């Protein structure tokens, strides 16, 4: 039963990914118009355009082109960059590593930040602490990531130069050096994600704290901190898993912006540059990669929710 449910979720996820690949293919290869004219320039002869189209199979019907493209993509071959002819995999690989490092760092900061602030807000409900955290999170919600990043840059890289203005991980010699150069972008991402999680987690916690088994624990004479941390928090965290999956989407969008602000050499910067240069193979590879991560994260959250909450299994 569970297995069947999880399996159907996985199949849906894979089908979604397939459909997303079609959207990406159409919007990069079909809709923008004649690739040959764009690549070869305005003064290319009709003959050279014809040869170019034949080489890249651009003269074939669209479904056939998609099939050819997909069969190569599935084997991990995205072709070469139009601009500099370097194979896409060689370009994407190291940037993916950089972005993963940044994302993991941001996630490591995000979890304690949101847990601590949400628990504080719920434990001191309707007191100044709660009000302050709630106003701060509403303000944080309203500040775009690139503004937040620039403010942090002004505060901690220009006014008080603790952290470097540019986050270049490649030149970092030691681990503390690398951490120092990554801290500002990671903090920006962690704040942007926490803002959503804090509000959700606080409301969940308050709901749980109002329940009878918590009153029972209180009446038993357990210390308050133990009730909040041991009895209430685990039950409030499960529904927040979905927010964390949603946050991954924000992390993905945020990574694009934050990497640009700090000139960090990752997938986000690559995507922006390739859209600028209209480098179709690179756009396809990065967009598909990022969407795949997002779909897999949502799938993972779904499966976790099914496993953790028996009530969902019959749905």
């Amino acid at each position: 039963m569970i297995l069947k449910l999880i399996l159907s979720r996985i199949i849906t996820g894979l089908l979604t990914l397939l459909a997303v690949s079609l959207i990406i293919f159409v919007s990069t290869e079909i809709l923008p118009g004649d690739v040959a004219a764009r690549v070869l320039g305005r003064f290319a002869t009709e003959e050279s355009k014809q040869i170019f189209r034949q080489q890249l199979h651009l003269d074939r019907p669209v479904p056939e082109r998609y099939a050819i493209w997909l069969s190569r993509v599935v084997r991990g071959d995205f072709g070469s960059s139009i601009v500099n002819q370097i194979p896409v995999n060689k370009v994407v690989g190291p940037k993916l590593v950089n972005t993963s490092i940044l994302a993991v760092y941001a996630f490591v900061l995000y979890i304690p930040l949101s847990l601590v602030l949400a628990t504080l807000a719920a434990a001191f409900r309707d007191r100044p602490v709660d009000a302050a955290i709630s106003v701060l999170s509403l303000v944080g919600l309203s500040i775009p990531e690139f503004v937040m990043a620039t403010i942090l840059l002004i505060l901690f890289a220009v006014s008080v130069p603790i952290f470097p203005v540019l986050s270049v991980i490649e030149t970092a010699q030691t681990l503390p050096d690398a951490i120092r150069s990554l801290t500002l972008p990671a903090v920006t991402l962690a704040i942007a994600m926490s803002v959503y999680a804090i509000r959700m987690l606080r409301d969940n916690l308050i709901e749980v704290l109002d329940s009878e088994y918590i009153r029972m624990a209180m009446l038993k004479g357990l210390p308050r901190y133990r009730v909040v941390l041991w009895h209430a928090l685990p039950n409030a965290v499960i529904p927040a898993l979905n927010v964390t999956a949603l946050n991954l989407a924000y992390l993905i969008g945020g990574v694009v912006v934050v990497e640009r602000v700090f000139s960090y050499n990752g997938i986000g910067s690559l995507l922006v540059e390739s859209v600028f240069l209209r480098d179709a193979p690179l756009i396809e590879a990065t967009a598909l990669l990022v969407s795949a991560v997002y779909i897999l994260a949502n799938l993972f959250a779904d499966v976790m929710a099914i496993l953790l909450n028996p009530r969902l299994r019959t749905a």
Partner: protein
Amino acid sequence: MAANPLQPRSRPLWRLGVCFQQIQRLPPTLTIGGAILLVYFLVGFTARFWAPYDYAEIGTGIPFSQSSPQHPFGVDQLSRDVFSRVMLGTDKELFLSLTSTFIAMVLGGGLGLLSGFVGGWFDEIVTRLIDLFISIPILIFALLVITAAGPELSGSLILLVIVVALVYLPRIARMARAAAIDLATRDFITIARARGESMWSIVWREFAPNATGVLLVEFGVRAGWAPVLIGTLGFLGFGVRPPTPEWGLMISENRNAIVAAPVVVLAPMLALSFLVIGLNFFTDGLARVLGRSARRSPL
């Protein structure tokens, strides 16, 4: 019983004291947000009459000057007056955010309500499509639309409106569909059906008025996020063409002034943030007002 803040006209509005009391009863976020938005709309409509310089006028002062009486927000790299540029950018920001959200609301809301109401295979297809488009992260989707539009349209206001509307469309449709399904099972719809009203009449007379609250709050939430998306695209260089005074673009252009004249980059940042704060506060207050009244009368 507290006065229903939705019906301020039932009391004599012409007495200023009573009017003030009415405002005090509203949720504070609504009044604060409303006041902020009022300022933005005033500036947006009137800035062209009192802005000291044109937004594209160069040679107004020494580049990267700090704040001074003549240039309250300093001077940017191309020696343009930042104060005038921020003020003259207000109407563009408001226009872009509200138009795109409105288009998405009409198309997405209509599609969602229809899909939830009609049901069957139509609903099945629409739901699948919505799920599909939502499964692409927002910024990635926006960049794909920009790529698909080709180089001819890039940097135009229309493209920006289309991008934001397309990003929002499936998200609003999903919400509207959920609202429609929730409404469709209510008794008054069943009764209207039993009365033999036409589908068109049910949609317009029974559905639309009852879905207004949800749609209004959704509009506020989306409109509050639209300036962020527009600013982000502008910041990344996919927004409107320079020298248009769009705040995201200005933040990106003036970023190399953060050491010499921080005010030059802080001004558009604060302008953008306060607009979003105003919109979010206003929506928060609106939801509170509607939620309170929704509890009294079924949605």
